[in-house]
């Protein structure tokens, strides 16, 4: 049987810099095909070339046995290729229904049939166990729901091939399971799926075969069952990286318990979601903030950082309770905050890597308001090296970097400030295994030097691995505080689901 999709010898350069060099991708009918590789390996570019968003420099594509050259995503969609792009690409102001049905509206008498469309949207979302008001604008919902809407939209088309570029990066485990259920249904119906993810476990759960890319080349294609995790990582990184998979449970500085907290948050209330949240972070300690999606983690830390106005509660930072009314106050006091949505709230797309990296540091780099280019250059070079940021140079515009590398620049933005406290909201979202290990070990190293870290992650494994103490939020309340031996996935999961009143008492006792 001929494969559904063949991409052969694909070349692509951006402003002279090669992103793909003779890359290959073959997808059979009815298979779930994993596409993996380091950040910047060219996965997303490959996909965008397939759907006609970018034009390729060389190579052939055939789809369904025929040569195919789609000139726009619209074309590809018409041919039966439905895509979920890496960054959520929906229209935030419009309703959920519209986001799902745009492009294949139901009509009656030539006019839009709203009731039918709402019903369809509801039905599609029901496949993911989601029951929300589909009339409300998409932006009213958290990232995870938005991601599910994007997925629902994509499978709503009668597609032969569904492409998912990191669909799980903002989903929690329950939702990932639901998604896998849907993927299996698609497969059973004979639909092929291309699945991109940096989470190796997920690949083994649903994928049949894998294509591994490195530096714009296809380095290996094989049935997934034949490869071990180690093989995958080795092929991706082009070397053995034993330390990556070696999980050390050494979290931060062992003496930190004795120190005064650098941040103490008591009875914080923000908006509707956060009602009564308390936690603290000591110097040299990595504290995890766990909870289901929508538990109010992002809102809590935004308020701590001065990005939103808290309604009640006290935030004590570095011993003084100087009011933090704006992010600039927080930064001056020695806090850093890496937000969860790097596209909307992180990068300044048209600025260079250098400018993005030194954005928060600038006032310190400057003398009488004049930027000291020499020092800035030196710092930037140091961090590009240290974090292994893959870019053409510090003057490259950050929008041209792959998602993972953008994330590293944002991390560097805060690390270069020498902060007392670093708040990381989903810091490893979309980052490859190698880089994730590097970032986590960097965070640990910094904690070892006395930095307090507050980390939010939807990957339980990661929180448990990194943190020495975990606060669990549920419905806007601090439901539990876990430390020592209690820091393991089972107890966190239990606390997330049922709360853990005793440990909570303990926290305040």
């Amino acid at each position, binding site marked *: 049987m001929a494969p559904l999709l063949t991409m052969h010898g694909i070349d692509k350069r951006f402003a002279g810099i090669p992103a793909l060099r003779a890359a290959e991708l073959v997808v059979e009918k009815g298979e779930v095909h994993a596409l993996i590789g380091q950040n910047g390996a060219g996965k997303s570019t490959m996909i965008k070339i397939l759907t006609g968003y970018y034009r390729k420099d060389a190579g052939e594509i055939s789809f369904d046995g025929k040569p195919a050259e789609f000139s726009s995503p619209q074309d590809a969609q018409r041919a039966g290729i439905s895509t979920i792009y890496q960054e959520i*690409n*929906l*229209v*935030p102001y419009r309703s959920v229904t*519209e986001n799902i049905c745009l*492009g294949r*509206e139901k009509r009656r008498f030539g*006019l839009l049939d709203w009731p039918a469309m709402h019903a369809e949207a509801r039905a599609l979302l029901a496949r993911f166990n989601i029951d929300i008001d589909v009339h*409300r604008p998409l932006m009213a919902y958290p990232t995870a729901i938005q991601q599910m809407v994007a997925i629902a*939209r994509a499978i709503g088309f009668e597609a032969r091939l569904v492409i998912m570029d990191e669909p799980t990066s903002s989903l929690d485990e329950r939702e990932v399971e639901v998604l896998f259920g849907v993927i299996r249904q698609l497969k059973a119906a004979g639909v092929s799926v291309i699945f991109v993810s940096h989470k190796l476990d997920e690949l083994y759960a649903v994928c049949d075969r894998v294509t591994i890319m490195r530096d714009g080349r296809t380095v290996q294609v094989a049935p997934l069952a034949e490869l071990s995790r180690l093989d995958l990582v080795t092929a991706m990184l082009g070397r053995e990286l034993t330390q990556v998979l070696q999980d050390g449970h050494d979290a931060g500085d062992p003496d930190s318990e004795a120190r005064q907290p650098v941040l103490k948050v008591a009875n914080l209330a923000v908006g509707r979601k956060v009602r009564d949240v308390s936690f603290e972070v000591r110097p040299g300690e990595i504290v995890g903030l766990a909870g289901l999606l929508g538990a109010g983690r992002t809102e809590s830390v935004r308020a701590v950082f001065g990005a939103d106005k808290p309604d009640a509660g006290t935030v004590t930072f570095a011993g003084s309770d100087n009011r933090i009314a704006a992010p600039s106050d927080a930064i001056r006091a020695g806090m850093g905050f890496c937000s969860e949505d790097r596209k909307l709230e992180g990068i300044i797309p048209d600025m260079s890597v250098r400018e993005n990296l030194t954005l928060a540091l600038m006032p310190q780099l400057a003398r009488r308001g004049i930027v000291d280019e020499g020092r800035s250059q030196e710092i930037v070079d140091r961090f590009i090296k240290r974090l292994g940021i893959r870019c053409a140079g510090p003057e490259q515009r950050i929008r041209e970097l792959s998602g993972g590398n953008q994330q590293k620049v944002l991390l560097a933005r805060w690390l270069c400030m020498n902060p007392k406290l670093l708040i990381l909201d989903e810091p490893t979202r979309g980052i490859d295994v190698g880089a994730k290990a590097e970032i986590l070990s960097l965070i640990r190293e910094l904690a070892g030097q006395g930095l307090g870290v507050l980390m939010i992650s939807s990957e339980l494994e990661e929180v448990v691995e990194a943190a020495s103490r975990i606060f669990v939020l549920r419905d806007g309340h601090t439901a539990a505080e876990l430390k020592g031996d209690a820091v393991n996935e089972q107890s966190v999961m239990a606390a997330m689901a049922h709360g853990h009143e005793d440990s909570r008492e303990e926290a305040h006792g």
Partner: protein
Amino acid sequence: MNPTTLKLFHGIGRYGVLLALLALILVGWLRYENFLGAFNVLSVLRYNSMFALVALGMCFVIITGGIDLSVGSTAALGSVVAALLSPYGVLPGLLGGLAAGLAVGACNALIITRLNILPFITTLATMLAASGCALLLAENQSVSVSYESGFTELGQGDFLGFPVPAWIALVAYLVGSLVLNLTSFGRTVLAIGGNEDAARLMGLPATRVKALVYLASGGLAGLAGVILAAQFGAGQPIEGVGWELFAIAAVVVGGTLLTGGVGSVGSTLAGVLLLGLIFNILNFENGLGWISLSAYWQSVIRGAFLLLVVAIQARLSMRAEEAAS
């Protein structure tokens, strides 16, 4: 903006402009004799129907996140072409003006979508060009329309006791509202304004729809030009100055966001009437003789009024935002 309040904001935008409009009418009714007399009401409607058409096109353009500065001179060009063709009958005049508007709209569409130049600068350029063409065609003078062909009925006539231009505007708004809310074209317009790149990746025909929106704006401006020629009996190459700003203000006062993605056709109409009535009210105020306002004070008052309306709207939406979060 906080997510949940979007609808509220939008609602208040619509609400605010209606309230302001009612308040203004009430003041006029209480304060001036004959303000709500048939003559005044109908002549205000007749005059403002041109602006209503231009603002309708602007509304669509702004919802896509763009802007069209060329509408004023496009209307002037339309009026000249219509006037030149009016001796051949009503239809040639009408179609001629419309075609002239569509031509400018097509230029805008091509430059914006093919050359990838931002709408602001594109339409700034076509504003100059349309005005130049109007002057060239008209040989720097107003062009008489033919009074024999019945062309002037399009501007000066009545139908069922209601001015013809007002009928035209009314129909245009009904169609516009229908298109925006009940066709996939309209939904795509809204999606493009919300996030153009996303719309494109979602497989929507973003380029085509954007082009059509500028085409429509040009066409509506051309139609306004036809009415201009018919209503005043002359094609006027130097008319239309400042119409674009009037239209933008009307659209914004109607609660449409200049960043695109949200908007309503109905409240744009209310915005047009609101801004149009201010001129009328100022004229009546002068007639009371209490204060004889100089033209200078009038512009100060108009500016202050615009400030008041948008400031109230801004406060309301901020309040709503706080309440919702």
